């Protein structure tokens, strides 16, 4: 029982980070029908930027802001100088996919030059040593902070999307670009903001991942990207509540496949499930929300 509760805590911690990251991935798909493979690299750049801020002595919330803004700016730049020119030139959607992969490799290469290839740790803080023991379950203060930060980010995002004019613009573009143009939505600024938000969520997820697991390296985005795409499919492409639920689900699924099956089969179970979902419910587990997409 203790083990079970501990595994829930383990799964929720990593799952909350998956959710934050996956929202960004699925948002871009929901609005523009493209997959941005550079999201993993944005996560890495966010983590590196946040690490630099932390090393300069800034507290965690500031580092989080730096990571989010760093990832966001990169996201916006990628739209402005890569995706948009490609769309304007009439490039196929696949072109954007390949270009985003190229951008990811480029960013990893640059990060290797600047940060080196070694894994780096966040400077130890007083928070990282606080651990509560409840029954047999150990909960780190950091885990609670990260889950709360993830929830806060998701709420903030939901607020922007549902309650602000730019959010409405984004939702209109997601519904139909043509309709958006007819009703006078400035499509270009809406897509730019979409990419900024998606990049910012990736950057923030990078910082959370880096702080919780003490790993920042140029290659950290690669496995994160695979998880992000997995969650996208679990939740349904472009389905934001689905991405949130899918993130937590994947975190718990990974943990419990290790706990009750075997660590050697963790990925086999995770990806096996995707096959199953694609076969049985190709629109994702949470496709009931489809109408509310983005």
């Amino acid at each position: 029982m203790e083990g079970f509760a501990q595994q829930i805590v383990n799964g929720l911690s990593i799952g909350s980070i998956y959710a934050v990251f996956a929202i960004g991935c699925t948002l871009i798909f929901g609005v523009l029908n493209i997959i941005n493979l550079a999201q993993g690299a944005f996560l890495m750049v966010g983590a590196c930027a946040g690490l630099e801020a932390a090393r300069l002595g800034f507290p965690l919330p500031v580092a989080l802001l730096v990571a989010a803004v760093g990832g966001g700016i990169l996201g916006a730049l990628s739209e402005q100088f890569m995706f948009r020119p490609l769309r304007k030139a009439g490039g196929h959607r696949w072109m954007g996919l390949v270009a985003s992969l190229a951008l990811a490799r480029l960013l990893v290469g640059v990060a290797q030059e600047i940060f080196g290839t070694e894994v780096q740790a966040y400077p130890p803080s007083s928070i990282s040593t606080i651990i509560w023991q409840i029954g047999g379950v150990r909960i780190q203060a950091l885990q609670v902070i990260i889950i709360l930060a993830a929830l806060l980010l998701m709420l903030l995002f939901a607020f922007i999307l549902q309650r602000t004019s730019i959010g409405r613009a984004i939702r209109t573009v997601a519904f139909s670009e043509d309709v958006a143009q007819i009703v006078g939505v400035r499509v270009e600024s809406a897509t730019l903001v979409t990419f900024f938000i998606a990049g910012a969520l990736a950057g923030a997820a990078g910082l959370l991942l880096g702080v919780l697991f003490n790993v920042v390296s140029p290659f950290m985005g690669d496995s994160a990207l695979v998880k992000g795409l997995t969650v996208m499919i679990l939740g349904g492409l472009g389905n934001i509540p689905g991405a949130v639920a899918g993130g937590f689900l994947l975190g718990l699924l990974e943990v419990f496949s290790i706990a009750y099956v075997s660590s050697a089969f963790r990925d086999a179970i995770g990806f096996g499930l995707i096959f199953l979902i694609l076969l049985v419910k190709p629109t994702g587990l949470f496709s009931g929300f489809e109408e509310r997409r983005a």
Partner: protein
Amino acid sequence: MRTTLATVVFAALGLSFGAAAHAKDVKVGIVQATSGGSAALYGIMQKNAAELAVSEINASGTLGDLKLVSIYQDDAGDRGQTVNIFQRLISQEKVKAIFGPTLTNSAFAADPLAQKAKVPVIASSNTAPGVTAMGDFIFRTCATEPMVFPGVLDYVIKKRAPKTSAQIYGIDDMLMKTAYDVHKKALEKAGIKIVATETFQKGDVDYSAQLTKIKATNPDIIVIGGLAEETANIVRQARQLGIPASTIMLGANAAISTKLHDLAGPAAEGFLVGSGWFIGYDSPRNKAFVDAYRAKYNAAPDTFAAQAYAAVYVFADALKRAGGADDPVKLRDAIASTKDLETSLGKISFDANREPVLSTKVLELKDGKFVLASGD
């Protein structure tokens, strides 16, 4: 005063001219990855140390009229390049020995060329099994997992008499899978029950699910088959999950790195690992090496540097005994018959399979540094 200085300068010039007139160059290749990803971490250290050894040996004059001329090439950790470099060094430069390469994958691709051409290869970082089995011209100075782990386990048995153990290792890493087998065999031989076996994969950052499972089995020791970065995170997360300090953590040879403490912090205290070398190894020969390396490169050498440095000294010693490098078989035999040569690693010999015979050391992480483990 002025005259003395002038005399010294003239004497020095005379000496070097004299040496140049009689010196017979012996070309040797140094093949290390000094660019291209994480392999460069290990490659740069080894290249530096090997070049340091070459310049020391030439300056000392122990080789008489023979002079080592090193040709350094960067293979960027890419085995295709390693093969090209070996070909060039062997057929064009006519090197008499090759030190390297950095990665075991490169060694498996390129060493057969040297074997065929009868050019001895002395590796200092290819720790996987089967490297020296490629041929009788292939040697190595690096301690391997089967050499070091039994010593670590013996130490723990003497100190704590563990009854149960848990293993966790990287299932998609050849080196770690091999380490896992070595660990498992040693544990079984010692009669220590393995109560949990968990795995992880490259790129994993969260080991909490595996460690929660391990915690439930309450083992006396945990044996980790991982690289330094992975091991650091496993150790840290294990302590965060409340695995007590009385549960001793043992690691693989590949986990020895200052990174371990950088990443794991105080959680890594008491971590045990076996090695052929450590920086505080108290011998005059090693101290001289560490000081010379620091003076020349303004950084502390690591285990691989010490092993590369020893490799060049092993070669120089054999060269001297063989009376030159003209006969490759004689030179090979001289390397193979190396016996108790005092190096940065302590006394080194080779066994019949050209594996190094070294006294291995059990190291413990104390106050953030690897020191010789002492049974307290």
